[in-house]
């Protein structure tokens, strides 16, 4: 049978190379499903590694202005613009990426969709698996971090690093292996999943995990240009809708977290020193992190957002969905 005429070509722009986990296991899957479900009427052209130009912090605006039709981005690349999402980036909030991504989508729909994200059509919201510490020395107590230069993943992760006496260093993720091997940094905070591609277990041999809530996570969005979405014929809009939203968000967060396991095993196989702090030890860290909550709530209040209510709701939802 002749193929249905292709009607719509969507451009998808993001900052990672095509063979990285998220493009390969999440974004390509989404795009392939959309192409398949539309019977070939939608084609998704994929542009990895910022090929269409600009820097990663500009991705969100590229979706808003239609430079690209769809972008995948780290919300924290634009600090201050989407403050409510930061509730999930607070230290020791999440345990499980599926549960947190589900909570994130729910809170996105109730609190962020028509306010902070009103200029763009969001297709998915998720977080990665538990972020942990990888360092060139064993880290157990917060005081072990004293004087270490650590690449932090987000604004709030950096705040935590400062609280424990470490120096947060800003460098793009691809620069981390080089930084570690040359001693420009002493460690980094990333989830297990990312360690494989960066060869972290070969560069540092100490990894510190936490019991219960994870040290930190980043929040992601898959965003589409609003006019482009609304201009689609209803049946194609439905194809997009069916592949997006709550279920997709849980899939994305879960898939990303599922890659943690094999990466962790690789570190175990190398004989690396993996420290899992028990609840009492984790509590020590939580105590150090507590002022960050207070500061964050104060910041949110200044912006006219009830930060405490967001924290409470996120905690409640995360607990509810975490088995």
């Amino acid at each position, binding site marked *: 049978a002749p193929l249905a005429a292709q009607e719509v070509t969507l451009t998808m722009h993001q900052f990672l190379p095509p063979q990285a986990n998220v493009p390969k296991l999440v974004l390509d899957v989404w795009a392939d499903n959309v192409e398949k479900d539309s019977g070939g009427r939608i084609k998704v052209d994929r542009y990895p590694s910022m090929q269409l*130009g600009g820097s990663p912090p500009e991705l969100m605006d590229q979706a808003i*202005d239609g430079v690209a039709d769809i972008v995948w981005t780290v919300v924290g690349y634009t600090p201050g613009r989407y403050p409510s999402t930061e509730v999930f980036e607070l230290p020791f909030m999440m345990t499980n990426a599926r549960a947190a991504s589900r909570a994130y989508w729910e809170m996105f729909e109730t609190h962020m969709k028509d306010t902070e994200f009103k200029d763009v059509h969001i297709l998915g919201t998720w977080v990665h698996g538990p972020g942990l510490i990888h360092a060139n020395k064993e880290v157990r107590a917060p005081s072990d971090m004293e004087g270490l230069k650590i690449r932090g993943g987000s604004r709030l992760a950096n705040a935590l690093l400062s609280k424990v006496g470490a120096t947060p260093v800003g460098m793009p993720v691809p620069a981390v292996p080089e930084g570690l091997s040359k001693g420009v940094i002493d460690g980094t905070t990333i989830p297990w999943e990312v360690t494989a591609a960066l060869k972290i277990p070969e560069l540092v041999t100490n990894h510190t995990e936490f019991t219960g809530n994870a040290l930190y996570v980043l929040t992601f969005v898959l965003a589409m240009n609003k006019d482009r979405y609304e201009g689609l014929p209803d049946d194609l809009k439905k194809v997009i809708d069916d592949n997006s939203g709550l279920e997709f968000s849980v899939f994305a967060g879960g898939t990303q977290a599922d890659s943690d396991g094999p990466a962790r095993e690789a570190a175990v196989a190398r004989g690396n020193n993996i420290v899992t702090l028990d609840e009492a030890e984790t509590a020590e860290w939580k105590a150090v992190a507590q002022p960050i909550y207070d500061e964050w709530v104060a910041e949110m209040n200044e912006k006219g957002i009830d930060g405490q209510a967001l924290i409470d709701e996120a905690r409640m939802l995360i607990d509810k969905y975490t088995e």
Partner: protein
Amino acid sequence: MSRLELGFWSFAVLLGMIFLRAPIGLAMLLCGFGGWYYAMNGNPVPLLAKLKSETYTTFSSYSLSIIPMFLLMGQFATLSGLSSALFKAAESFLGHRRGGVAMAAVGACAGFGAICGSSLATAATMSRVALPELRRYGYSGGFSTATLAAGGTLGILIPPSVILVIYAIITEQNIAKLFLAAFIPGILAALGYMLTISVYVRLFPKSAGTRPPVPMADRWKALGATWPVLVIFAVVVGGIYLGWFTPTEGSAIGAMGTGLVALLSGSLNWPVFRDSLLGTARTTAMIFFIVLGAAFYNGFLALSGVPQFMADWVLTQGFSPWLVLSIILVFYLIFGCLMDSLSMILLTVPIFFPVISAMDFGMSPEHVAIWFGILVLIVVEVGLITPPVGMNLFIINAMDRETPMTETYKAVMFFVGSDILRVVILVMFPAITLFLLPG
């Protein structure tokens, strides 16, 4: 018109504009604007939106900030008297040989290249020092200018190198490793030029005079005066490689170091300092305007799918990797006769690099990327001295109005020959380039 066709058409338009003497950055920028406009079916919003932030983010790049810093370093090195110290030292050792003063000029260029990131700056600086000396010892006009034009390319071939920084950023390679890989080919270039000089003076004995040797003690004294060059090169390139600091930090340290040497030499008064800032400003803006144009144009090219199409096409033809590499290098040599090196790198590497990295040369992808980078660096640098358009030739002829351009053209072909021979050797033996790299 499909986006792909649009992409191919944009080439023709771009070349047309460049050959009609449009500033190269402007030509790329306009093609980028036009491309985005038509690819978006006449909707100007995405293009205008890109312009709101992309000029700023292109210029506010941590990695590209190495360029103005290396340029400033070159300016300071010039006015601190390091360039004449280098020439004096090289001249005292080599000057009494046949063609020795010209060889000394090449040696001094190599030394200056170790603390200067730009070919044009090296050519201009060393001409100011060495041209009068060459003429004094009876070297013919064309031979002198050609020697300095060729020697100037050592400014880029020997690390640090602005072009390698750009290549590293486009291809996401490690700057320190590229610098390291450039080292042996750079030394080979200097030796090749010296060999060329000794052949040339045997073929044309009247083109060079001689002078008596300098006492040994004076030679060592002259060599001793060049120690700041050695120290700065070791700290900057060594420090970057050993990871004491990032390449950008290394460029800042280098600028700081040469600035201090200039300050201590007593030559750094306000008018001199101001002029070195102005010199840095002109070249920096010239480079970044091309970078900006290339950013817009390459974004559009990616959108059009041309690089992907080219890579797929080459792969399906079943050409051998070596044939493809040779064709690309010959392309660079031909276009190098017409265009400047930076524009060529920014314009073509995004297209050729995917082609090359998809092929199997029996090396790791990283080694292929580094090796290809060094080869491209050399062939675009040859472009600086190939007639008719060679920026180094222009600069030196502007400084030596007595020598007709045709004389320079004739003599420089010998150096071009030595360059081509070197490229062939480096293509055949990748190990020479990769020798210093770990693993």
